[in-house]
């Protein structure tokens, strides 16, 4: 099984890589209907089809895919190693009892993603108050998710599964921890955007890209969490 997980990771990597290669014949300096005028702190980059930040985000998502794919691959290999039929070893893999709060956390993260999507949708109707409201709600739900995860850690620890009581518990802490750190990184960008939104001179159009990219990132982290949650539940 483990080798197939590794190949799964590989396939995802290759697909993303192939998407990059599709850009081989594009002319990034040319302007199409949907082009955006990019302003950065250091001045203009001129007109480009896709804002560089969006490309960078997608490349970064490829990096994260590789990261979590490898963690999950390691999870399966370690689990198989513990079962150890072909190694003659006695299994040391004992599933941990999942704290029920994880269901609540999952709901929070889904709500967070939905709110971000609503904020993105409200951008089109150009209603500043609604964008602001949904954006703040999205971040607050995400913070609740992280708080819930920490409570989950405490509950797991209280029920006798520390880092050293078997690999399943240790993986639980590591996977949720790494996922939480990625969400925290997203929250920093979210906070910067919220603060910018509070300034009068900042137009909605100026934060449009930030909100769009936050939304994509949020959906992606929700997807990662759902995959990991399923993995933790079924093993």
């Amino acid at each position, binding site marked *: 099984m483990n080798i197939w997980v590794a190949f799964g990771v590989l396939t995802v990597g290759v697909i993303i890589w192939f998407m990059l290669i599709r850009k081989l014949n594009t002319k990034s300096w*040319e302007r199409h209907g949907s082009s955006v005028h990019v302003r950065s702190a*250091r*001045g203009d*980059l001129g007109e480009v089809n896709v804002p*560089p930040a969006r490309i960078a985000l997608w490349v970064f998502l*490829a990096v994260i895919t590789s990261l979590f794919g490898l963690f999950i691959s390691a999870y399966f290999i370690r689990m198989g190693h513990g079962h150890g039929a072909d190694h003659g070893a006695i299994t040391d893999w004992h599933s941990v009892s999942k704290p029920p709060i994880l269901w609540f956390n999952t709901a929070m993260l889904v709500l967070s993603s939905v709110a971000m999507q609503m904020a993105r949708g409200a951008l089109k109707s150009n209603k500043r108050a609604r964008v602001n409201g949904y954006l703040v709600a999205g971040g607050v739900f995400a913070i609740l998710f992280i708080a819930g995860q920490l409570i989950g850690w405490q509950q797991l620890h209280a029920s006798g599964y520390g*880092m050293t009581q078997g690999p399943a518990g*240790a993986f639980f802490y590591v996977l949720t921890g790494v996922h939480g750190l990625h969400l925290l990184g997203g929250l920093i960008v979210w906070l910067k955007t919220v603060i910018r939104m509070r300034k009068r001179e900042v137009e909605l159009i100026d934060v449009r890209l930030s909100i769009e990219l936050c939304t994509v990132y949020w959906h992606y982290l929700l997807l990662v969490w759902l995959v990991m949650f399923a993995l933790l539940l079924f093993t």
Partner: protein
Amino acid sequence: MAYAAIADRDNAHALHDPQSFITKYIWSQDHKVIAIQYTITAIAIGLVALTLSVLMRLQLGFPQSFHLIAPQNYYQYITLHGMIMVIYLLTALFLGGFGNYLIPLMCGARDMVFPYLNMISYWVYLVAVLVLVAGFFVPGGATGAGWTLYPPQAILSGSPGAKWGIVCMLASLAIFIVAFTMGGLNYVTTVLQARCRGMTMMRMPLAVWGIFMATVLGLLAFPALFVSAIMMTLDCLLGTSFFMPAVSSMGQPLGYNGGSPLLFQHLFWFFGHPEVYIVALPAFGIVSDLLSTHARRHIFGYRMMVWAILAIGCLSFVVWAHHMYVSGMNPYFGFFFATTTLIIAVPTALKVYNWVLTLWRGDIHLTVPMLFAIAFIFTFINGGLTGLFLGNVPVDVPLSATYFVVAHFHLVMGVSPILVVFGALYNWYPKMTGRMLNDTLGRIHFWVTFIGTYMIYLPMYYLGILGVPRRYYALDSAIQFIPPSVHTMNEWISVSAMFVAAVQLVFLFNLVWSFFKGKPSGGNPWRATTLEWQTPDTPPRHGNWGERLPVVYRWAYDYSVPGAKQDFIPQNVPPDKLTPVGHAH
């Protein structure tokens, strides 16, 4: 076309010129300054690794003569030498150094697309280097686990630095990966989004292609090292058992249970093999440009070269387990990886043929960069062909623990890329500083390095076939089958290594001396076609291109075009400005 680049605005310079010394040279967001910061830091830490290799050779050539070098020191030297050379020198120099310098200039951009992130990337890299060096000074010293850091021995008390040295190493690697990811996002996005008008992907110089593809590999492969670093740190500090099996140390059972050391090997080499190409692909790209420029001839088979780079990049992810043939793997598994390993030789060989065919009937100028480029082809063939031996399981198993492997990987991924680094520094130094490096010193540096390298590594192949084991602190009389001639040969190798190490000081002197006293180079001393040689100022100012961005009309290899007046046509010369032979203008 409603294209309005920053270049076309009046305030371009006001936007781009930093004012104070600190923003210009220390906290700089200029890709050229960051590139030079990366280069200097990488060379500095590389000198540490070079010194470590000299110490190792002193011990191997003259055992029992240097009481300063205890067995645990020897293993620390091996570990740090390997790790520094592969990651902190070569990866950082090719991607952070040359990538930063060449991508915006060769693509016709004013800077990287995220200059601030680029600056942070360098400073985080510096932190990684400092944490690495701190490993020498923590209680117990640096880790001596070998550069592969295999558990369980890496964190058992028998290994040097098993307590804090290994933690410094793992932390430093994790920090390096963060720095690389920030830089890598920049390089990829800049290549995809910030090329000037006319610069299609298939007109980019191969140097940019190599660096671009290596960055993509790094972005996908470094997470594997990151994952293993995190999990091993937890094993070490918190007592988890990701990689650590039930094990006793000094008769005492440790708290570990059920971990998989093989899992670490898989993760490590899933990073480790692409890492070989992270180092090799920029070298392939840069050497293509050097050969073409100094042979005054277009690169042979440009499209084939690009596709070969892409194919090598893709295949490099499915060969990792050929580093693990001796781990007791399933024979079918080994067969699969032997096959993929031999397949990757096809695009690689194709590139070698194309380099040779580029030289064929070229107007070869044996400048110092060209000497290094040709030396690269020699060395890469020497190192690469022995890779075909080691790629086969039945040949690898007996050779794996011998000096044959040491010679192979040093030639193919140590010396070959370093020769390109030297060639590239001699080639682009004039653009970086406005002065030429001294030619005589350059030739001395080249010949001693080139011949010395063969004096070091060719005998090692022979030692390997004799069965001399690598990783040994000393070959004493307990190893019966080793003839006395091996010791003589080890002395020979050590003396050669001293010469090669010493001549690098000549190179360093040349770098410093030429900065002040070198011959002024002018803007385009090699009469090259690529955009970085067409900048209005040398060294290029902040923003690179003055008032207007360049526009590209042709590929990067218009050398010796029949009917053209000059033997090179820069990429930004429009078709109607070409002067045929016999015309006054």
